[in-house]
């Protein structure tokens, strides 16, 4: 199948970033997760020789007691340098060619960036992937982290802008995520965090999401707008997940990186039903487009009604796709359902598997705290995602180790492009990281420390066929009313040390960069 791009969308693609670098989480402001520049990493004849060329391990001396050197943030790569924040509360700048440390921030013996309120990897050290921007004519690396030196001294979240060349501070933002106490379950304290949300730079503003720590308890979700030049908060932009920003309602946390496109900010939000009456307005469990100046909601897509909200936080952020059938915002919710929304109008294009939206109490669906949390990758009209698939209501967890490639502009009958059970994924609740793609070659990490390269059947012959309903044997597929779909070839399967479930592989400058839960950063190339 040919990948088609419409002429009007070429400009948007340029805006999305044709960078050979990987300057932010998911590569660009649309959160595509794709590298359109060709290299050996997009050459199916070269990919099988993919191998580790250098390894960086976080020095033990950098990690204070009680913190982990594991990486939950993903590397960004710009002008021959790799930038990645560690669970030990330090950001590392590495030479992309050798892995040598260029600088670290804060450099020991300075205290690491950390919070006193921690409960899972999102709140330990730096979990927010960085973004590259220009500030005052200087390349800057911007990231979010908790900081014991500001506000309540409990680890309130703020953004940091550092000189990308030297690591010198350009600014530290005002507090964007409040922590006003350490009592688990307290409904009178604020327990906000930036967590996994990666900042996105659009024009002269930086947008970053705010959520809670482990629903302990659930907090009011926010998106904050910070001025690029000095790190002050732009209070003319306000978005809160529920009610008004000043009331006591909770929910709608923004767990992931938001996307930006000139006149729109796109986000997905966490749940809001914690057993209390529904707040008004309720922007929880939604995909949203916001006015970038004011934060006003331009459109909202909310497939799960409040009464069915059993905590399927929409943790995979939006992927704004410049597809041949228009501008789409596509994402898979934690419950395993994938939705494609017209990014201009907010109307739903399709849901996979097909469903009547909103879901109802009698449709047999369950919308709970399942683990479809990873952002998808976009390549032309193809969206590669971890999704529940046709077994979403019957065998939900089988999807945890599986990738689907979906044709976003096709009819429902032709939606599935291929399906693969990723080798080296255990099938447990956290099995896969977020996939990335370059010209039809998909890279994804697993919980057992495998980095796997998969070839779209249009660039390398498929390995075989399997049933679109993955619970149906291939031999019975057609007779059971389903179609056969390709099972793509695995071109490489490289062993790394440590899980990659929180991390994406950055495809930059002809190299692949992966950070793992064991505190290692790898550079690979064929």
């Amino acid at each position, binding site marked *: 199948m040919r990948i088609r791009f419409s002429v009007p969308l070429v400009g948007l693609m340029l805006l999305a970033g044709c960078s050979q670098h990987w300057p932010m989480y998911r590569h660009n402001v649309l959160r595509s997760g794709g590298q359109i520049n060709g290299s050996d990493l997009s050459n199916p004849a070269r990919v099988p020789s993919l191998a580790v060329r250098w390894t960086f391990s976080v020095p033990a001396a950098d990690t204070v007691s009680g913190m982990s050197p594991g990486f939950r943030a993903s590397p960004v790569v710009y002008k021959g340098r790799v930038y990645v924040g560690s669970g030990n509360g330090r950001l590392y700048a590495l030479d992309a060619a050798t892995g040598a440390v260029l600088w670290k921030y804060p450099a020991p013996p300075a205290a690491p960036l950390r919070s006193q309120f921690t*409960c*899972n990897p999102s709140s330990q050290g730096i979990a927010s992937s960085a973004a590259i921007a220009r500030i005052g004519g200087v390349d800057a690396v911007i990231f979010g982290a908790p900081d014991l*030196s*500001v*506000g*309540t*001294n409990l680890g309130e979240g703020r953004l940091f802008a550092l000189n990308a060349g030297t690591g010198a501070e350009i600014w*530290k933002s005002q507090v964007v995520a*409040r922590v*006003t*106490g350490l009592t*688990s*379950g307290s*409904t*009178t*304290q*604020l327990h906000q965090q930036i967590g996994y949300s990666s900042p996105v730079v659009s024009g002269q503003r930086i947008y970053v999401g705010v959520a809670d720590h*482990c*629903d*302990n308890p659930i907090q009011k979700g926010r998106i904050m707008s910070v001025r690029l030049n000095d790190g002050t908060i732009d209070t003319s932009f306000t978005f809160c997940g529920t009610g008004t920003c000043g*009331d*006591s*309602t*909770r929910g709608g946390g923004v767990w992931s990186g938001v996307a930006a496109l000139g006149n729109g900010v796109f986000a997905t939000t966490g749940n809001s039903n*914690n*057993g*209390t*009456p529904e707040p008004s307005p309720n922007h929880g469990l939604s995909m949203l487009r916001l006015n970038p100046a004011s934060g006003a909601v331009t459109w909202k897509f909310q497939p799960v009604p409040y009464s069915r909200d*059993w*905590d*399927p936080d929409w943790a995979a952020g939006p992927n704004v796709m410049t597809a041949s059938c228009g501008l789409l915002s596509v994402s898979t919710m934690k*419950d395993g359902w994938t939705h494609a929304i017209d990014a201009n109008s907010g109307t739903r294009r399709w849901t996979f598997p097909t469903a009547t939206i909103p879901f109802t*109490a*009698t449709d047999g669906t*369950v*919308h*709970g*705290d*399942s*683990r479809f949390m990873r952002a998808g990758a976009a390549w032309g009209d193809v969206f590669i995602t971890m999704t529940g698939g046709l077994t979403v209501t019957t*065998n*939900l*967890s*089988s999807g945890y180790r599986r990738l689907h490639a979906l044709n976003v502009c096709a009819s429902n009958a032709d939606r599935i492009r291929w399906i693969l059970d990723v080798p080296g994924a255990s099938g447990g*609740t956290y099995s896969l990281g977020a996939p990335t793609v370059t010209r039809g070659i998909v890279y994804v990490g697993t919980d057992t420390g495998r980095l796997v390269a998969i070839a779209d059947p249009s660039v390398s012959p498929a390995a075989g066929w399997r049933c679109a309903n993955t619970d149906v044997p291939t031999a019975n597929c057609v007779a059971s009313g389903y179609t056969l779909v390709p099972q793509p070839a695995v071109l490489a399967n490289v062993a790394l040390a440590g899980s990659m479930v929180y991390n994406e592989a950055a495809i930059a400058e002809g190299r692949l960069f992966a950070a793992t839960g064991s505190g290692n950063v790898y550079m690979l190339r064929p």
Partner: protein
Amino acid sequence: MVELLVGVVAALTPVMQEPAQPQPQATETGVRFEQVLSIGGTAALAAQPLKVSLREWVVRNQQKASITAAGVLVVQLRAGGPVVTVVNGQRAERKEDEFFVVPAGAVLAVETGQDTAVFTVLEVQR
């Protein structure tokens, strides 16, 4: 210096309090199906009425909750796993999609962690 001043001001300012909100419900139950069925009715066996119900049982995060099985329960954890269950003193960690059986008269206790657990419960009661 500005930051130092901000820090001093913050330290002197009373910690921000949020207005308390109503206590949330720890569990909810939705009945999907409930009916008395007549099973059997052969020459050798008189028809036996069986009460059959299908429910969704939701236990919010950080909760301990229990239900007493009037009849036999066939339970599936649909979301929010892994979750610890205790039946007749036996603790077990349940994964998503896992089925398990609770004998009639037993108590099914559930302890949730960070996540809300959703169970589908089929009960068959004489």
